[in-house]
């Protein structure tokens, strides 16, 4: 059948006698080549098996040349290093093993080639003989009549059903046979036993707020999920140039009001706030389409001074809109240095607003908003510790009603709180001069405090590896175990470091290391476990005010000149790329779905592939 009748060759086969001759020759060639191939295969198999018996005595991962006798003799030599005859024996066996090994390698190579040639000759012979065999071509299946066709299809359907059943059966069998994974249990046990504080806004599913996964996928607040400045994985651009436009997916028009706050991203939306004076403070919120950069809506409100309010003093470097917004995927909230708090829905309708009064802050109020479940937390620190003016508010996101509020005996600070999860429950960690205070975010109950801070505190706290980390500018980095109660100043500081301490940028930690980037560009790496300094590197690029971000094992550090220095993080440091924005920037970039959002002095940049090439991140 397969060897088609040779109709179309006029002189092949020439005649009956010739045909027989060629058929015999071809068969003989095929038989010879087949025998030859068999012999070669046998040699190769013997060659393969020959090394096996001695290898059975060895460990599973023994090398190709390991030999039990040799190992035995070598250990004997350790007992008796002067045994010359043993040395000679070892050398002899070693030589023999090496020669054997390379000889076998060569044999395999040559044998393989010979086998291939043998098989080719065998096949050619067989096919030739087969094609010369006299065959009768007989008419096959007759055309199908209606009943035949029906039967034909019906049998086919049953075959498909049978395959489906067999597949389903094997899937079930496999599912039942495979042992349960203990990974979830191990993960849960770890968080319970070791007292690990997993940074992040841990929330339950259900309710009018996003769940953990949604928060992880987006960049809902200052420094992203949990405020940790960490993106565990994902592929983010390395190279771009804001001036030439290379690698830039889009940039906003110039009309957005200035601000030093950072962008936040929720699915297809990017939010940012800005404000200017003309001559009264004009406070604006912008919502962009993440894919195209189109401005979907903008809303603005005016600050109305309270009666008897002092004229607004604006510190140039901070501005009116240094506070980053927060979103829960349903609403977006913004606060400004004027103390005006406002919430919008995703369509840009104002939900509610509050005037909390202009905070008394030396450099201007700059703390960003955060959320815990459906609560909007506002750390409004101002004045001096004994002024009794600092408050931590919790507003209900839907209504703006105060859920709870707590007076804080601290001075004005420029930090943003984080929510951490501990085996005992969630905590809201705040960090101001002079106290680090942890609250129960549900009701504002104080859990513990530590008297460690001083001066103008700007770096925000982070959590990693079961510890929380707070920075006293220019002075110390403290690692605190968050499982204490009351005053833990003397009891719960795990370790402390004093070299390379930043004054503005917040630290970032992951994969066993914490990184500190000071304003002068010195990057210092400590091991999380014991606070041992790993290395210190000078990051070229001038002044650094924005907080570094860790994406996988890469550090993204944005200099004030707008140059993003991207470096391989611990254990070994190396600079991978330097990508200029072309504008001054002090914001902390947002990393979301393969794109980076950076606010420069004039524009909001989206760095990444343009819309067509984009695919959802897994």
């Amino acid at each position: 059948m397969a060897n088609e009748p040779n109709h179309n060759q006029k002189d092949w086969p020439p005649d009956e006698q010739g045909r027989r001759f060629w058929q015999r020759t071809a068969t003989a060639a095929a038989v010879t080549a087949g025998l030859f191939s068999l012999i070669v295969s046998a040699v190769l198999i013997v060659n393969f098996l020959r090394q096996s018996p001695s290898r059975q005595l060895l460990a599973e991962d023994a090398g190709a040349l390991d030999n039990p006798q040799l190992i035995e003799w070598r250990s004997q030599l350790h007992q008796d290093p002067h045994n010359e005859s043993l040395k000679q024996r070892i050398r002899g066996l070693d030589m023999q093993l090496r020669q054997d090994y390379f000889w076998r390698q060569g044999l395999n190579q040559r044998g393989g080639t010979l086998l291939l040639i043998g098989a080719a000759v065998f096949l050619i012979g067989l096919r030739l003989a087969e094609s010369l065999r006299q065959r009768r071509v007989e008419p096959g299946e007759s055309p199908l009549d209606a009943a035949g066709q029906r039967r034909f299809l019906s049998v086919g359907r049953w075959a498909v059903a049978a395959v489906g059943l067999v597949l389903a059966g094997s899937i079930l069998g496999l599912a039942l046979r495979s042992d349960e994974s203990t990974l979830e249990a191990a993960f849960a046990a770890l968080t319970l036993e070791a007292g690990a504080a997993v940074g992040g806004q841990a929330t339950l599913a259900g309710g009018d707020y996003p769940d953990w996964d949604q928060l992880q996928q987006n960049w809902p607040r200052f420094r992203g999920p949990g405020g940790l400045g960490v993106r565990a994985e994902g592929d983010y651009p390395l190279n771009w140039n804001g001036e030439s436009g290379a690698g830039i997916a889009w940039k906003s028009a110039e009309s957005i009001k200035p601000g030093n706050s950072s962008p936040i991203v929720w699915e297809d939306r990017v939010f940012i706030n800005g404000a200017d004076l003309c001559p009264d403070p004009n406070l604006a919120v912008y919502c962009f389409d993440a894919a195209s950069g189109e401005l979907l809506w903008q809303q603005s409100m005016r600050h109305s001074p309270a009666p008897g309010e002092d004229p607004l003093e604006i510190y140039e470097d901070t501005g009116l809109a240094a506070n980053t917004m927060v979103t829960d995927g349903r609403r977006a909230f913004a606060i400004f240095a004027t103390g005006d708090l406002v919430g919008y829905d995703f369509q840009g309708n104002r939900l509610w607003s509050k005037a909390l009064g202009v905070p008394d802050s030396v450099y201007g109020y700059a703390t960003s908003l955060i959320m815990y479940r459906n609560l909007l937390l506002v750390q409004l620190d101002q004045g001096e510790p004994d002024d009794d003016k600092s408050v931590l508010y919790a507003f209900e996101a839907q209504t703006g009603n105060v859920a709870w509020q707590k007076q804080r005996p601290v001075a004005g600070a420029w930090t943003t709180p984080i929510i951490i999860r501990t085996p005992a429950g969630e905590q809201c960690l705040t960090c101001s001069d002079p106290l680090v205070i942890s609250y129960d975010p549900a009701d504002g109950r104080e859990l513990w405090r530590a008297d460690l801070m001083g001066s103008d505190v700007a770096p925000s706290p982070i959590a990693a590896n079961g510890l929380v980390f707070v920075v006293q500018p220019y002075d110390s980095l403290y690692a605190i175990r968050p499982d204490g109660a009351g005053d833990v100043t003397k009891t719960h500081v795990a370790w402390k470091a004093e070299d390379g301490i930043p004054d503005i940028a917040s630290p970032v930690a992951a994969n066993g290391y914490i990184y500190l980037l000071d304003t002068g560009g010195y990057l210092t790496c400590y091991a999380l476990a014991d606070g041992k300094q790993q290395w210190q590197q000078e990051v070229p690029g001038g002044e650094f005010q924005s907080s570094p971000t860790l994406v996988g094992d890469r550090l993204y550090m944005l200099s004030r000149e707008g140059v993003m220095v991207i470096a391989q993080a611990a254990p070994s440091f190396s600079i991978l790329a330097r990508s200029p924005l072309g504008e001054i920037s002090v914001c902390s970039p947002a990393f979301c779905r393969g794109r980076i959002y950076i606010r420069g002095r004039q524009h909001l940049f989206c760095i990444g592939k343009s819309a067509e090439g984009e695919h959802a991140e897994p």
Partner: protein
Amino acid sequence: MSKEKKPFNRRDLLHGGLQGACLLGLGGLSGALLAGGGKAESTVWQIDPYKCVACGNCATYCVLKESAVKCVHAFALCGYCDLCTGYFEPEPAELDTGAENQLCPTGAIQRTYIEDPYYEYTIDEALCIGCGKCVKGCNAFGNGSLFLQVRHDRCLHCNECSIAAACPSQAFRRVPASQPYLLKEADHAG
């Protein structure tokens, strides 16, 4: 190809539509992927020597009978020690080239006297099987100047490297073909 003209019918329309959709889909897919990775350089497999744990899988998992991975030596990093823990087995009876003292199962490392007390170690790649024994020794007690690399004159550039699949420390990765080696360098260590 001649094709009989048939009366136009629903089946033809469906057929044509599906065919067009297939073509469009394929074109769109290719376009999207090309636009996405348009600048992607061609890549080759390589070992990150800083991640490599010298487990020995390179010697056994390569599809080649004799692995494409071999040991290379960054001479600038080497301490030229007399007692080289990459060359000698843990407790050598004597510091000489006797087979009983050598760590390398194939004797692929050559030890040459340079000047007192320095010895140079060079690798005969024809003999090296990429087992990584010397790498382990050198990393444990030496400068780590011996390390494994995919030799691109041997590597077949499999679509999915079978050593990479077996690598315990994810040291195998694709690197740009224009920079096909990840060599250890002296200043990196400092």
